[in-house]
């Protein structure tokens, strides 16, 4: 008999251009049975482009579970470099089909001017790739 327990599963993705949406398409581990919380955080990179400690929105994330059968919704992704940054999870209750896809799109909303990406599509040295991580608080039976 297997016991269900809570795990924290990160799904990091990298943003390499300011104007190109990032497609998220990954298979969740088969031992994940249910997602009970979701948190999206900026991991590293944006601090190289700003002196601000807090930007309320650096991008929008749309997430779908179970091979696009369940649309979780749209999430604002903040950049929060402050010590008191919130670490709370969005509550969720999503039963996960074994081996199903986590899909979605991320659209960057900051540093989109011509000084970061030229008209020919090349990025300038003012732009820094950055990483955003989706944390899934999940029930696992591994």
């Amino acid at each position: 008999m297997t016991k269900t327990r809570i795990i924290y599963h990160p799904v990091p993705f990298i943003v390499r251009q300011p104007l190109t949406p990032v497609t998220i398409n990954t298979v969740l581990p088969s031992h994940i049975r249910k997602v009970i919380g979701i948190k999206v955080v900026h991991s590293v990179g944006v601090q190289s482009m700003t002196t601000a400690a807090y930007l309320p929105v650096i991008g929008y994330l749309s997430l779908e579970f179970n091979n696009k059968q369940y649309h979780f919704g749209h999430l604002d992704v903040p950049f929060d470099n402050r010590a008191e940054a919130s670490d709370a999870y969005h509550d969720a209750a999503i039963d996960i089909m074994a081996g199903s896809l986590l899909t979605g799109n991320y659209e960057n909303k900051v540093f989109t001017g011509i000084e970061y990406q030229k008209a020919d599509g090349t990025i300038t040295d003012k732009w820094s790739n950055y990483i955003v991580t989706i944390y899934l608080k999940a029930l696992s039976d591994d």
Partner: protein
Amino acid sequence: MIQGYRFQKVSLRISKSGQRVYFNAESHKDFSMLKGIALSVGYDGALFGSTFGFRVDEKKVLDESHEAHLLVFGNDVPPNNRMLFFEKPIPIHSAKLEGIYTDSALQSLLGNISYSPGGGVIAATDVNVKKTYVSGKDIVSYGNAVVDNVPVYNAPINIGLGNSSMTMPSTGASPSAPAPVYYPYDVKITMFLSR
């Protein structure tokens, strides 16, 4: 007299950029539940991009790519605000507790050009430099921990300065200089046990 709870601590020292430090310990025999975990890091500049994986009795609780800054308390954040409390406490009976801290693990991925031009999901194998908690051959023993020398940065860049030269770690394609981090610094792991 034994109290109803205990904070079991493990200390690690990070000596250089990109270092991975592994520890294992046994939970205190008089306590049966692990209710939470938190870190404190000696230098704030080291927080972003560093990761901490944790498992109990060889069952993963936190992936190796779990960011350390989500677990860290300090002068401005009291421990009970940042400690990760497990909603379902993890049963422990002299359990094997293992952790692996990787300095600057995510910075090294910023310059990775193998992803599609716009970006995309980072494979777990890219973050988890080694998929096992059992360290490799190039191990240096350090106190109660084991230090695993895994190069995180790309090849060094040599900068000619007249007759001398200076070697700097490369941060890949990241155009801006990373925030300075001073080594060594200490990481303390606090585990909240209860009876």
